[in-house]
């Protein structure tokens, strides 16, 4: 079984938000800049609450910011 990974689009979303800095995002979400760096670099998986705060900062739904990748191929469509 491959390790589960949470991918994120924070870098792209920061770029699309007018090059929002990591420090600005950190201040908006109530964490340190180093934590944003760690999340962006997939070195830390945030709590659900922090994930929602980050998504709210970008005005995006959670699944557009974070994606769960458990290493297995996606299930085929049922219809």
């Amino acid at each position: 079984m491959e390790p589960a990974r949470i991918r994120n689009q924070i870098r792209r979303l920061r770029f699309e938000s007018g090059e929002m800095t990591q420090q600005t995002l950190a201040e908006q979400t109530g964490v340190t800049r180093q934590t944003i760096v760690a999340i962006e670099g997939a070195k830390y998986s945030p709590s659900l609450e922090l994930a929602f705060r980050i998504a709210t900062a970008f005005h995006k739904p959670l699944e557009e910011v974070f994606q769960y990748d458990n290493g297995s191929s996606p299930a085929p469509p049922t219809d």
Partner: protein
Amino acid sequence: MSLREKSAWICLVTTGVVFVPYFVFVFRLFGQQDHSLASYIGAFVVAVFWQIILNVGAQIYVTIRGGEEPKDERDVAIEAKAYRNAYLVLVSLAWTVPFVALPVAAAMGQPVIPLSKGPLLFISQLLLLSFVLAEMAKYLTQVICYRRGI
């Protein structure tokens, strides 16, 4: 590098710098069959004094240079992992102390039953070594988690 990572590095380095020479000194005393309590207590007081001076001095320096930084959920998660590892190290080492101390004391010709001053001092130093290694495991875990992720 975050303030808490710098803090973990400082604690790791100062603990190593102070307590490695301390344990080299006290285990040399055992090798010389010197069991005077004053030597051990004196060395311990000097080690604790230097640990406080170096640690507090360095912590004040990095805080003044970097500024205050609130603790967030990642810091808490790393701290929890560090404490768990430190606890495992402490429990593992503390259990082995009698099994190491008593045969060593017997081999050095010290009376083991009842325990004489030499083996008691040796046991106390091994327990202190367990605490120090557990502390270092805690700081090392923090440094690794900050560097490589949790």
